[in-house]
């Protein structure tokens, strides 16, 4: 089989980390860009300004699944400001999807950052 996806993306798609639904969470946030029944719902538990725990439920393309998984690992343990500083391109590059038309690869981080901005601004 010829792999069109990077090994990292394939791994996160086939074995996504942090899938689930937290029972105790500070907020949950849903992506507003997916269509046709696709969705991501993140559950985020904040403690002392840090992402203590994160999980999500997801239906979507392989890239958005892998990106959600990768993003969840990346933000776990980080402070809110550290999460807000992560560049969307960094995730796309790490997962090997550089075509900017694939908004899906950027969507999980954008969703989380949008909600965190709302959260901090009260």
């Amino acid at each position, binding site marked *: *089989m010829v792999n069109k*996806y990077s090994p990292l993306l*394939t791994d996160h*798609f*086939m074995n*996504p980390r942090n*899938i*689930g*639904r937290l029972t105790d969470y500070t907020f949950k946030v849903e992506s507003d*860009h*997916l*269509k*046709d*029944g*696709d*969705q991501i*719902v993140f559950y985020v538990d904040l403690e002392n300004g840090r992402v203590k725990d994160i*999980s*999500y*439920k*997801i*239906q*979507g*393309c*392989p*890239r*958005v*699944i892998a990106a959600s998984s990768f993003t969840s690992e990346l933000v776990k343990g980080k402070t809110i400001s550290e999460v807000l500083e992560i560049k969307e391109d960094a995730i796309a590059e790490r997962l090997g999807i550089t075509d900017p*038309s*694939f*908004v*899906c690869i950027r*969507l999980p981080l954008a969703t989380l950052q949008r909600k965190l901005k709302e959260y901090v601004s009260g």
Partner: protein
Amino acid sequence: MREVYLDHAATTPPYPEVLKALQESYATIYGNASSLHATGQKARRALEKAREDIAKLIDAEPEEVYITSGGTESDNIALFGTEALYPGQPMITSLIEHEAVLESAKALESKGHPVRFLPVDTNGVVDLNALKAYLEEKPFLVSVMAANNEIGTVQPVKEIAKLAHERGALVHTDAVQAVGKIPINVRELGVDMLSASAHKFYGPKGIGFFYLRKGVKVLPIVQGGGHERGLRSGTENVPGAIAMALALKISTRLFTRTHYRYERWTAQILSKCGEIGGFRLNGHPQQRVPGLLSLSFKRINGEALMELLDMNGVAVSTASACQSHSAKRGYSHVIQSLGIDEEYANGTIRVSLGVENVQEEVDFFCEILKKCVLQLRGYRNGQ
């Protein structure tokens, strides 16, 4: 890792006999069929023999069969080769045609031909009442596919041809997904033009044919040396034509065997889908191409399912593509036309069986399909 190929509606692996014929003819029948010397005439005879064989298999006259580069070219000849003879007159096609017809029809629209697109019912069968209504507008052409490439529904082409001819319209059918898969008899269908492509029936890629009923006028769309009785200029692909004729002969001979096997395997796959739950079989329950299954799974992204199956060694195709970046729907125009629930439509894959498949591969597919659907549903449920 095991690799199971279940995407025969996309393309097929050539029969070993076809590969052998191709290799041998490239080595020994290399002449230009237009050359007058013996080497050229040898190629001419081989080409005409291939044409005769193809004609016989679809009940046409040899001079009604034109060798082309495949389905897309044949479809283009049918539409662009006739439109100039009927300036400004409308044409009718369906909403679920292959892009080779759909895009050509749109191009005709920009040339001043009003184009009417026939809707389909939930089984993907074209609406004959709409056809009757549009025929009142005196179209010059009706082009409806013989069998749909995504859902396998076989269209009532015979009835369409009868209705269209009563109103004086020409009839073309894109039979790319039908020729070599189900018996096709051009006399019985009553069509004026038909398109076929060899690689869909275990022949080589880049070769196909165009059936044109004797007496029907079509203009060439490519200018050149006047090959193929002036309709299709360009040095004839003789080895390709030989291989195509052989592929069609073998496929036709295997109909009974393949149809029996596909029926059994279809029942097995559908039974597994029933076990998985939340699925629907798209297309007409009976009027369908054997071995082509369009399956929609509820609350699944079709692209994710296709990719996960691929990563597990099974090649199928999907009608879904990521459209998170656009306003378009994520699934195809065919699936959209069926009007099925979005929760199902998004999770559509196409499984198309082939003559080289064996029981163990179907067993393997059934197990992998269940595993993959449940895995993706688990992601959605947060499990």
